[in-house]
């Protein structure tokens, strides 16, 4: 992998820090008028998810991380691994629980996910921003209630639990924001 000098640093660049692939979140150039310039860099470690600050001397460089994001369709879970397929090449890749990082609760078969690969191995899986899932369990709720009240927990077909308005009933399809893990709306059933 190529090396990147601090002048090439920008948010989104993937570099190796402490033998772990990292993504640059923020990069600030710091220079005392008469002193050495350096870069104060905020990074996210892509495996552990930890966010930390690191200081580089300006002009120094960091090794690039061979990290790429690819759109893959989720196929199935075999109990240990979650299997994904490239819809163009039909190549399959399996992600372990660590790479899933809890996002398995949003996976719907045959939906595209963003899989991050490091040296060809999956290290994280991002489901679509919005998913539509069936409510399989929730309190019946009272007629006449509106979305303005506190809502109630509902279990969805994938096992995920979100708060929904009181009027949402078992069997209905709801749209959920997977990033905030919040209910967005009911989905009209065809």
């Amino acid at each position, binding site marked *: 992998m190529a090396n990147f000098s601090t002048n090439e640093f920008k948010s989104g660049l993937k570099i190796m820090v402490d033998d772990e692939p990292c993504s640059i979140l923020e990069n600030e*150039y*710091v*220079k005392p*008028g008469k*002193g*050495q*310039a350096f870069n104060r860099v905020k990074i996210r470690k892509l495996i552990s998810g930890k966010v*930390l600050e690191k*200081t580089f001397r300006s002009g120094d460089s960091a090794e690039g991380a061979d990290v790429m994001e690819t759109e893959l369709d989720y196929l199935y879970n075999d109990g240990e691994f979650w299997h994904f397929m490239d819809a163009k090449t039909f190549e399959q890749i399996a992600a372990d629980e660590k790479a899933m990082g809890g996002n398995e609760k949003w996976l719907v078969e045959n939906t595209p996910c963003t899989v991050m690969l490091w040296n060809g191995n999956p290290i994280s899986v991002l489901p679509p921003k919005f998913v539509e899932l069936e409510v399989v369990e929730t309190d019946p709720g009272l007629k006449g209630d509106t979305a303005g009240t506190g809502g109630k927990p509902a279990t969805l077909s994938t096992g995920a639990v979100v708060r929904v308005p009181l009027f949402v009933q078992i069997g209905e399809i709801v749209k959920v924001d997977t990033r905030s893990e919040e209910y967005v709306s009911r989905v009209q059933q065809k």
Partner: protein
Amino acid sequence: MMWQPCADMATLKKRAEILNGIRRFFAERDVLEVETPVMSQATVTDVHLASFVTEFVGPGHAKGVKLYLQTSPEFAMKRLLCAGSGCIYQIGKAFRNEEAGRFHNPEFTMLEWYRVGFDHVALMHEVEALLKAILECGDAQYISYQQAFIDHAGVDPLECEPAALKSLLQACGMGDIAAMEDDRDILLQLIFSELIEPQIGQDSPCFVYHFPAAQAALAKISQADPRVAERFEVYFKGIELANGFHELNDAAEQQARFELDNQKRRASGRAENGIDSRFVAALHSGMPDCAGVALGIDRLVMLATGHDSIEKVMTFNVERA
């Protein structure tokens, strides 16, 4: 195509008012406004400054002569002092290669002034008066470099070993860079930027004076304590705003410092810069005892308008220039 300015019109009006205010301030004090060349045949030797260079080709210079864009107007203004100008100030552009960020643009506006007969203490008080006039801020705080380190980092910067500075940086999560760095002054600069600057001058401007002699730049070494130089910096709300000296006016000492800079440049793999012989010659002819300071106008406007990024107070930053 991004053709619009970076700054909004209200900020540009405020900027113009500030420039007027500065000119009024110096007119009232009978300080003469001057202009010196932005392009010069010589430049600084500072290890941590990179100059832009261009070339003049024309009458008298058929083969071309190298011209450096000035990193500050210091040498030319000091030549005016040597020529008997008396107190002078300048508002002009300065250029520094390799510098861009939230507080840096490679081309920026600098206010620099020299007061004959002042020492650094008298000049600090004048800087405070200017800041009060422009920013309407409260009384400034004054702290020595040594005391700032003792109060905010728990080490004595004039006495402690580099190993102590390294372990302090390590404890603050900067072990990687500390491990690579053996230069005592760079370690001190890191500690200053990361640990001390965020803690000083938050409510009113803070003057830090008596920098270590090794960071004297063009300041006199203190006769009372040769460990320190008569140099000060001003910090306000996390911004390094100004840098001033009780000016070195000993030509031989100045020549020696330039040569030491060039030794350091060589050691760190940078090209040596030719010494500005006209400036040294002027010092030989005699420069009056004086103090001088350079203040970043863009940063001053940032403080006056509350903008958090230098581009927001500039018409067009380097990306839009």
